């Protein structure tokens, strides 16, 4: 087996992984860095982000406001020390991107422009039209090209972390074009593999978002934290699940039901302001969890519009006019015309809530460190947690930058202050075992299960049991189903026996990861007997700070459901209060 010896391996080359790689290369040009990714870096799903990235920059804004919007938005499940660090670093990181060439949209005076997002008291989202994530990703990727010490391993699928002596000492990965297994021996590993929205059937997440890195860490013994918190986004295109950014509402778009009525005023987010005069942090600029819940109720009341793709409500942008739509929301216009045949300049756009983002992830602390020496995580795969029970839109892109860099600097700190060398013999043995597992999967015959069949059963049961509203009954059923699917997974047989770009094999590995991750979502949700943020229980409708002002941590078991435990939330200055989105009108 090919052996690559480096100082630090980064798994994942999206926004978080690239930011980490640049920070490593800048800090010490002699560091040996490997950057692994199952797709070319610019294919990473950060490219799909549209709306923008939050950071305090304007005179009328303040760090305190960003703090309170984030913590309240997260229904007080955020670790407040981490939030404070995050908001302090945010403007620096966004400015750094500006220096690296990110084409941020500008004010007439040449300064960077900001737009409002949901749940924000003041507008603070930096944006590059409605392709912000795309531009951030390409800026980072292109910037990374000037550092020769970043050795890229594009289209390398990481299969296992190599853990010996309680420390993470590398990983194994398959070169997709040849099927060859490599072992990467590293003193430290940073996992930046992104989210896991593909455990649901209707999602804004690309095909690659299968929770691989979460599963890698989980199986290596690190806990997954707060997995039951899954964010739905209120405005997905029906059919495909393609996102129309919150920027639509930030720019003044409104949501109406089949009667043309702005229904959000019936759900504690009113009163309705005049058209074209949005009031921040109310109505359409309320938080995502509340907006999605309102849709669910409208659907039950029969106020939704039935379309060929199921029940929808309408997003109305018409009053913004063609000029503004072309300037601020060109991608939205293009997507809407192409995929549902509606031109926002003239038509109402059908939309519905869609699975979007995992608040939970690999349990990390404010240093982006996991509980395992040598192992760090950043980006959507990690849970610091700054997002709590409901992420504030546009905090994630900033989080990639802030904690990608932080992970890098702390990994350097770790290897230069006592991080021990790699135990070559022991690690090689582990790598061989990992290869053995792949070979077994590869050669299995007489399989009775198909990848697409199991995947469909998984996504169906997640939608049914662990969606916007959950009950004990629905969750129990989903938990049982997932455990059954995990055991049936061992009967999957690959049809494809080629070594060359065997996507059958990678789909199987991704499915295995998704099943592990999905089970932590369902079991975490079953055990959390309260409603908080994006986790809403019809049988426990209130937030319960006495029992559940706590992070859920889930530990892996080979056959049984994950073991659940709880950790205290770090609260520094904001005591849990009421989330008010009525414009202080009560």
């Amino acid at each position, binding site marked *: 087996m090919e052996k690559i010896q480096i100082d630090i391996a980064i798994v994942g080359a999206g926004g978080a992984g690239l930011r980490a790689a640049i920070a490593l290369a800048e800090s010490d040009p002699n560091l040996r860095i490997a950057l692994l990714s199952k*797709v*070319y870096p*610019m*294919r*990473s*799903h950060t*490219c*799909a982000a549209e709306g923008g990235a939050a950071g305090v920059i304007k005179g009328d804004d303040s760090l305190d406001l960003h703090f309170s919007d984030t913590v309240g938005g997260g229904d007080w499940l955020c670790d407040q020390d981490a939030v404070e660090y995050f908001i302090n670093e945010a403007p*620096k990181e966004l*400015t*750094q991107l*500006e*220096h*690296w*060439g990110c*084409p941020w*949209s*500008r*004010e*007439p*005076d*040449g*300064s*960077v422009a900001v737009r409002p997002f949901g749940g924000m008291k003041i507008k603070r989202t930096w944006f590059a039209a409605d*392709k912000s994530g*795309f*531009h951030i990703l*390409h800026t980072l990727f*292109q*910037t990374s*090209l*000037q550092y020769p010490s970043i050795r890229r391993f*594009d289209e390398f699928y990481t299969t296992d972390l190599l853990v010996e002596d309680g420390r993470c000492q590398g990983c194994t990965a398959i070169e997709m*074009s040849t099927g060859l297994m490599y072992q990467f021996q590293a003193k430290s590993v940073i996992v930046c593999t992104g989210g896991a929205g593909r455990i649901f059937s209707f999602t804004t997440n*690309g*095909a*690659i978002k299968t929770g691989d890195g979460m599963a890698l860490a989980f199986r290596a013994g690190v806990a997954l934290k707060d997995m039951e918190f899954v964010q739905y986004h209120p405005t997905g295109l029906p*059919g*495909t699940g*393609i*996102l129309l950014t919150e920027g639509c509402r930030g720019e003044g778009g409104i949501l109406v039901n089949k009667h043309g009525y702005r229904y959000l005023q019936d759900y504690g987010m009113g009163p309705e302001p005049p058209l074209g005069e949005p009031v921040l942090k109310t109505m359409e600029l309320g938080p995502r969890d509340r907006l999605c819940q309102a849709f669910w109720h409208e659907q039950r009341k029969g106020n939704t519009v039935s379309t*060929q793709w199921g029940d929808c409500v309408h997003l109305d942008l018409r009053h913004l006019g063609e000029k503004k739509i072309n300037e601020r929301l060109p*991608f939205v216009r293009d*997507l809407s015309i*192409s*995929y549902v045949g509606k031109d926002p300049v003239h038509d109402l756009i059908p939309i519905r809530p869609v699975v979007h983002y995992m608040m939970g992830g690999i349990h990390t602390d404010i240093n982006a460190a996991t509980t395992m020496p040598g192992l760090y995580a950043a980006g959507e795969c990690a849970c610091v947690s700054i997002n709590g029970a409901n992420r504030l839109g546009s905090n994630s892109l900033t989080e990639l930058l802030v904690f990608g860099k932080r992970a890098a600097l702390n990994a350097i700190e770790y290897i230069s202050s006592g991080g021990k060398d790699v135990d070559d013999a022991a690690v090689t043995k582990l790598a061989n075992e990992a290869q053995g597992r792949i070979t077994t999967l590869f050669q299995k015959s007489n399989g009775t299960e*198909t*990848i*697409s069949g199991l995947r469909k059963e998984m996504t169906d049961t997640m939608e049914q049991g662990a969606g916007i509203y959950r009950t004990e009954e629905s969750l129990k059923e989903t938990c049982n189903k997932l455990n059954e699917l995990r055991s049936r997974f061992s009967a999957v047989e*690959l*049809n*494809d026996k*080629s*070594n*060359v*770009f*065997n*996507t*059958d094999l990678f*789909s199987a590995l991704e499915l295995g990861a998704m099943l592990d991750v999905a089970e932590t979502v369902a079991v975490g949700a079953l055990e959390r007997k309260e409603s908080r943020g994006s986790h809403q229980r019809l049988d426990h409708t209130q937030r319960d700070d006495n029992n559940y002002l706590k992070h859920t941590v889930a530990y892996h078991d080979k056959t049984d459901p994950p073991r659940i435990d709880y950790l205290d939330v770090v609260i520094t200055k904001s005591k849990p209060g009421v989330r008010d989105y009525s414009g202080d009108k009560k």
Partner: protein
Amino acid sequence: MSERQVEVEILRYDPETDQAPKLQSYSVPCQEEWVVLDAITYIKDHIDTTVSFRWSCHMAVCGSCGMMVNGEPALSCKSFLRDYPDKIRIEPLAHFPIVRDLVVQLDDFMEKLNRVKPYIIPKEKKSVSDGQHKQSPAQLKAFKQYTLCINCTLCYAACPQYGLVPDFIGPAAMALAHRYNLDSRDGGREQRQEVVATDEGVWECSFVGACSEVCPKQVDPAGAIQQMKIASTVDWYKEHLMPWSKP
């Protein structure tokens, strides 16, 4: 929702077992609003799991899913079946070596992107604590179009010159060099000229314009190359006829 039976032919090739690529045909029950990519994933999920292809975003922004659809380079996630007849042929992007089935080798493209130094080479040193650069909306507009490239390489598959002379840096990488040259924060044009104002760069382009026609993001690489050609010619005159005019 109405269904339509479409015959999808896919060029199959596995270097481990096949002497040469060959077409394989599948009959696919398609929904009216499907894109070509949906038909291929249907095949993968329900008919033949061995078909290999790349995709991720399904919203025309990650650049993974470029293929030849009925002989034309296209993003399969944004090619609607309603625009095609009941029989479609899907092949890997032209001008690239095939890895397997619809997956092509991108090493050459990636190397070329790298070669044009696609990053800000600062005019003047500035640290983060000095704050942001001022850049007017007009200055942004000067290069914005060339930032929209998703690296899908359709333009390489369309470019006859790249097909003939593989050393040609090619449309997308050239447009990217132009993007940084035009950025008010950048001072690296001279360094990039060493790469682009060469026989592998602007002088190789025969200005067919196929790249701009096929580009799904309206980047207009042909326009970028044309502008660079003019600027390089001016450079040449400055250096050779008016040596005193060099700053």
